[in-house]
């Protein structure tokens, strides 16, 4: 009687076991997000599987339409198939997801890229029917879109200059001949050296000044605002000075002296020479530049001399902690004097250089006094030798006397 029951139990157990081998449906199932499109489009499939989109449920059909479950080309490219999106349609296509707050919220991504793009030079030209301008895929790629923090991404901080330079550094780009060497200029700049040689990821690239999705050249009168994002002190003095006043729709801006893309490290001695770029025939203004430089140079020389004396005093050593602090103070004034020079007002610069020079001279004077005190040891030494010789003479007399009494 027991045998059929055992068989029944075995049968149930086998069925249950078989049921467990069927892959469960749900998020744990790893399936190719490219669906069956990859059968005919293997290259695109490989690129897409690497992208940031693939693991997030974006599929080929999300952009291209059609049916990714069919292996029949006719059915797959059937109803709703979009094919290769036209360039002018791409921004709107991407925006269907990326401007959707509901979809972007879980990723904490902004949704204003499309709106920004429409304000950009690229977006406005596109709206006017220029098909050559950059759309989303020109910078981000089409299938292999990577996150910006991925070093391989074309929009990673370190790759942005090359990405922008693909168009803006090329001769193929029409109507921008004066900007053909813009990439080369940037690569020679102090900003690029900070980024690539010193690995300073906060150093500016193209997008830091021109904007990211809303990319545009800064307007006249806006350059100082752009540079002033980082160079706040320079901007403060620049806007308070004479150069900030527009004359005839133009005014000298940061780039007038420092260049726009090939910005070089600021050298104080250029205070003397930069004015000649615009004021070549104007002796009064040229002299003003030379005065700025002279103010700075004489103060810096006094501070350097004082610092050398402090180093000499350290080697003796005499007490210098206080002087170290004062040299540091003088260096702070000197550092402030260079931004102050952007006001092109010698009296503003002198406010700092005079203080720096005063501190330098004061330290020099006090240390020279201490050195003079030390030199007085030498006079004591003369007196000391006088007594030494006297003692030796007396001792010799005693010795001779002892020799005579022998």
């Amino acid at each position, binding site marked *: 009687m027991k045998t059929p029951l055992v068989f029944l139990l075995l049968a149930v157990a086998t069925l249950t076991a078989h049921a467990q081998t069927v892959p469960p449906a749900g998020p744990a199932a790893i399936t190719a997000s490219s669906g069956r499109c990859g059968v005919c489009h293997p290259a695109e499939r490989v690129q897409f599987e690497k992208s940031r989109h693939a693991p997030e449920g974006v599929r080929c059909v999300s952009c291209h339409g059609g049916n990714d479950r069919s292996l029949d080309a006719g059915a797959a490219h059937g109803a709703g198939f979009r094919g290769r999106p036209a360039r002018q349609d791409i921004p709107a296509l991407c925006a269907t997801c990326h401007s959707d707050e509901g979809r972007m919220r879980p990723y904490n991504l902004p949704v204003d890229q499309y709106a920004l793009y429409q304000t950009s030079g690229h977006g406005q030209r596109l709206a006017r029917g220029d098909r050559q301008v950059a759309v989303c895929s020109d910078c981000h790629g089409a299938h292999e879109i990577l996150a910006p923090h991925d070093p391989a991404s074309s929009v990673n901080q370190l790759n942005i200059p090359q990405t922008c330079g693909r168009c803006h550094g090329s001769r193929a780009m029409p109507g921008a001949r004066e900007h053909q060497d813009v990439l080369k200029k940037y690569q020679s700049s102090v900003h690029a050296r900070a980024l690539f040689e010193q690995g300073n990821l906060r150093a500016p690239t193209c997008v830091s000044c021109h904007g990211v999705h809303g990319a545009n050249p800064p307007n006249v009168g806006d350059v100082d605002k752009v540079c002033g994002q980082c160079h706040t002190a320079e901007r403060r003095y620049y806007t308070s000075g004479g150069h900030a006043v527009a004359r005839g729709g133009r005014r000298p801006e940061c780039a007038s002296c420092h260049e726009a893309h090939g910005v070089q490290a600021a050298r104080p001695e250029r205070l003397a020479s930069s004015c000649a770029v615009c004021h070549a025939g104007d002796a009064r203004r040229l002299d003003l530049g030379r005065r700025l430089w002279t103010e700075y140079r004489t103060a810096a020389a006094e501070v350097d001399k004082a610092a050398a004396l402090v180093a000499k005093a350290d*080697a*003796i*050593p005499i007490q210098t902690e206080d002087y170290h602090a004062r040299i540091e103070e003088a260096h702070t004034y000197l550092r402030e004097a260079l931004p102050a020079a952007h006001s092109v007002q010698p009296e503003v610069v002198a406010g700092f250089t005079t203080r720096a020079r005063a501190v330098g001279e004061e330290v020099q004077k006090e240390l020279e006094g201490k050195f003079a005190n030390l030199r007085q*040891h030498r006079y004591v*030494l003369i007196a000391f030798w006088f007594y*030494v010789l006297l003692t030796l003479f007396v*001792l010799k007399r005693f*010795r001779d006397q*002892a*020799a005579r009494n022998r």
Partner: protein
Amino acid sequence: MNAPGRQGPPARGGWVDWLEQRVNLSEIFSFITHFGLVYTPVDTQKPVREVLREVAAEPVPRYAHGARVLGLLAAILFGLQIVTGVLLAYYYRPTPEAAFESTRTIVRDLPGGWFIHQVHAWGSWLLVAVIVLRLLRLFWEGLYRAPREVLWWCAVAMTWVVIQSDFTGRLLTWDSHTYWSTVRGLEVVWAIPIAGPILAFLLGGRTVNADVLIRFYVLHVMVLPAFYAAFLYLTFATLRRVGLSQTGPARDERPIRYREHLYSMTMLTVGLFAILVTLATLLPLRFHGAADPYVTPGGVRPPWYMLAPYVLLQRLPLPWLSGFVMLAAAFAVLLLPLWLRRDETPGRRLRIRLAGAAVLLVWLVLSVLGALLERR
């Protein structure tokens, strides 16, 4: 039951006699003379006045004269180093954090501290120079031959002790230049076969850190001075057996009274002190900032007496060769009396002198090369 103090001439009263009746002053004086001053035994049974009178009248060779003065200078300098060293130790703190700071406090903030420090620093320089020159003088005069072998060994040992005192002392300031100079010197020492690794082990590794500093400090202020005093004692014990050397021209050999010799020694002391004061005032040794074990300043050389093995270490293909050369030189100097002990003909003596001069010349050339060496 006659007390020793009552055997002498009638008492003149005063504190000397008062003390004489309670303490054997001659014994104390005798103890002191074991470390210098007097070259003959002292009769501790006689009262101290009589002992002093006898000592003062003792005939001695004219010793504060010519190259013989070197031994006296070494003794005086050693005394000065002890006095200044003890004063420095009052304020010095032997840790990497405090060593440079405390040295700077001594030199910069304490009244007269710079003077004590500079005299100690220049004194060490002079002491090394004097003790090396004395060894050369003993070699030149042939004073290693029987029965003076022990004196020669003492001289060699004292040279080693003085050089090691200088080497351990220069690290103590923890100044960046002397620190790296010590590191360069230790590289030479560690290259010595067998002994080098053992020394590195005893020092606590090949990094010059707090362990090395405290060990150097103990060596510098306790062990090495104790050894120096022991060899000084041995030197005078030997001198009392074999007597002072009689090597000068005949007119110098006419003995003088000890009283005259004492005046000469006092004059030497005054002169030496004056020279030290002048050097310390006009050419004070400079500070370069606290040492950083991770930053090597450029142009650092080992101490001058290690330049020759250093250049060998830097330029020979096998690093242990330089250590071997140094070890061989040390043993050759030490064992010199063993194979030159017999009296020799003047010709042979000349050959020995020339051989020594040739070795010295090679050493000097190597030292100059070491001073000009660009480190690889």
